[in-house]
C-alpha cells in the first residue's frame, strides 16, 4: 500500500508543481459553459433546461483534454518502465494514477461548477443534483479515460485518438448522468450511474495495465 500512496502523492505534487494544468482545465470548463449562451441564445428558460446536460458535456470535454497527461509524461521520462518492474503491481499503479487524476481533474471541475450554474441559470436544487451526479459519474469517466490513455500511450500523436476511442463508451455515462439530474427516475439513474462508475473503476487498473504492458516493443 505504501507504493500506492506514494504514487498518488507523486502525481499530485508533480501536477501542482509544474503548475497551472489543473487551472487550465477548469478554465476550459468554464469557457465551454460561457460560449453556450453565445451559441444557442441567452433565453434563460432554455438555458436552465439545458444546463445539466451542458455541464456534463463541459466536464466530459475537460476530462478528455487532460487525459494525455496521465501516462505520457511517465512514458517519456522513463518512469513507466520503472513502474512495470516495481514491487507495486502495475495494476495498483494505474489505480493510483486514476485516483490522482480524478483529484486533479474532476474535483476542481466540481468545485468550479457554481460558476457554470450561474452562467447557465441553474437553480439551487438543480445545481446540487448536478454536483451529486458529477461526483458519482466522473470517477467512471476518468477510469474510462485512463484505459484510453493507456491504449494510446505508445503513439506519438496518440493524444488525438484517445477521445475518439473513449467517446462511444462514455455515452452511457452521459445518458445516466443527465437523467440523474433532470430525468423522471433520477434516483434509479443515479444508482445506475454509480454502478457504471464502479464497474469502470474496477476494470480500469487491469485493462490499463494490460494495455501498458502490450504497448512496449
Amino acid at each position, binding site marked *: 500500500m505504501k507504493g500506492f500512496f506514494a504514487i498518488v502523492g507523486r502525481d499530485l505534487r508533480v501536477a501542482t508543481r509544474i503548475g497551472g494544468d489543473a487551472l487550465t482545465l477548469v478554465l476550459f470548463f468554464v469557457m465551454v459553459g460561457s460560449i453556450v449562451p453565445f451559441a444557442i441564445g441567452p433565453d434563460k428558460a432554455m438555458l436552465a433546461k439545458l444546463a445539466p446536460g451542458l455541464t456534463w458535456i463541459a466536464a466530459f470535454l475537460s476530462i478528455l483534454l487532460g487525459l494525455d497527461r496521465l501516462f505520457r509524461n511517465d512514458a517519456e521520462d522513463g518512469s513507466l518502465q520503472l513502474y512495470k518492474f516495481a514491487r507495486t503491481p502495475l495494476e495498483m499503479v494505474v489505480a493510483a494514477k486514476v485516483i490522482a487524476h480524478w483529484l486533479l481533474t474532476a474535483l476542481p471541475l466540481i468545485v468550479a461548477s457554481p460558476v457554470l450554474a450561474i452562467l447557465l441559470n441553474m437553480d439551487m436544487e438543480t445545481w446540487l443534483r448536478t454536483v451529486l451526479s458529477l461526483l458519482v459519474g466522473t470517477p467512471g469517466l476518468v477510469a474510462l479515460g485512463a*484505459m484510453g490513455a493507456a*491504449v*494510446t500511450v*505508445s*503513439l506519438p*500523436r*496518440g493524444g488525438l*485518438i484517445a477521445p*475518439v*476511442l473513449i*467517446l*462511444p*463508451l462514455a*455515452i*452511457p455515462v452521459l*445518458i445516466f448522468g443527465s437523467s440523474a439530474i433532470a430525468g423522471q427516475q433520477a434516483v434509479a439513474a443515479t444508482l445506475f450511474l454509480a454502478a457504471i462508475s464502479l464497474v469502470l473503476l474496477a*476494470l480500469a487498473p487491469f*485493462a490499463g495495465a*494490460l*494495455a501498458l504492458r*502490450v*504497448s512496449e*516493443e
Partner: protein
Amino acid sequence: MTVDLAPKPNWFARIANPSQFLGWTRPLLWPLTILTAIAFAVGLYFAFLDSPPDYQMGDTVRIMYIHVPNAWLSQFVYGVMAVSALGSLIWRHPMADVSMKAAAPLGAVFTALALFTGSLWGRPTWGTFWEWDGRMTSTLVLFLIYLGLIALWRAFEDQLRAGRVVAVFTLIGAINIPIVKFSVDWWQTLHQPSSVITPDGPHMPGSILTPLLVMMAAFTLLFATLQLKAMHTEIRRRRLATLERQRAAMAEGAK
C-alpha cells in the same frame, strides 16, 4: 534408418504459419462465393416472390429481411473480433491479428447498414427515422466503436505492435455487445423485443421466418467469404511490407 520423432503440430499451430493458412484456405474461396450467391438468390426469391405481407406491418416487413441479418452481423462480427483479440493476447496466434484487422471494416459497414435499414423501416412503421431508444443508441455506439478501432489500426506504423493494443481495446469495447443484445429487454421503449430466439420458440409464422433465416445465412456466408479474402490480402500486405523493407535495405547497401 531415420525415424521422425518430432511431435506433429496440431492444426491450430499449423495454420499459424501465414503461408500454410493461405494454402489451406485458398481452395475454400470459390466454393464460399458460390454458396453465398446461391443463398442470396434463394433469399431474395423468398423475400419478394414467395412471402406474404405481414398482417401488421404490411410489405415493410420485407425490409426486416435485410435489416435483421445486418443487425445480427454487426454483433457477430464484433464477437469474431473479440475472440480473435483473445487469441492474439493469450495465445499470440499470428492469424488472430489478421482476423481482427480484416473484420473491423466489414463489421463497420454491416452496422451502418443495420442503422440505415432500421431507419428506413422506422419511418413508415413508427413515423420517425430515428429515436434515441436503447437498441438504436447502443447500435450507434457500436458503430462508433468500430470506427475507433479502424482509426486505432491506422494510427500505428508497426502493425504487429498495433495488433496487441487493438486487441486490448476490442475487449474493452466488448462491454457494449451485451448492452446492444439486451437493450430491447431492459428498456421497453420503441424497438420490438426479441421475436426469433425466445423461450417459447419463434414468434413468427413460417412464411416470414423462412426468408429471414435464408437471408441471415446468406449474409453470414457473405461475411465469411469477405473475411477470408480480406485475411488473405492482409497476409500478402505484410509480405509486401517485408519486401519493401528489403528493397530499401538493398538500395542502402548498393550505395
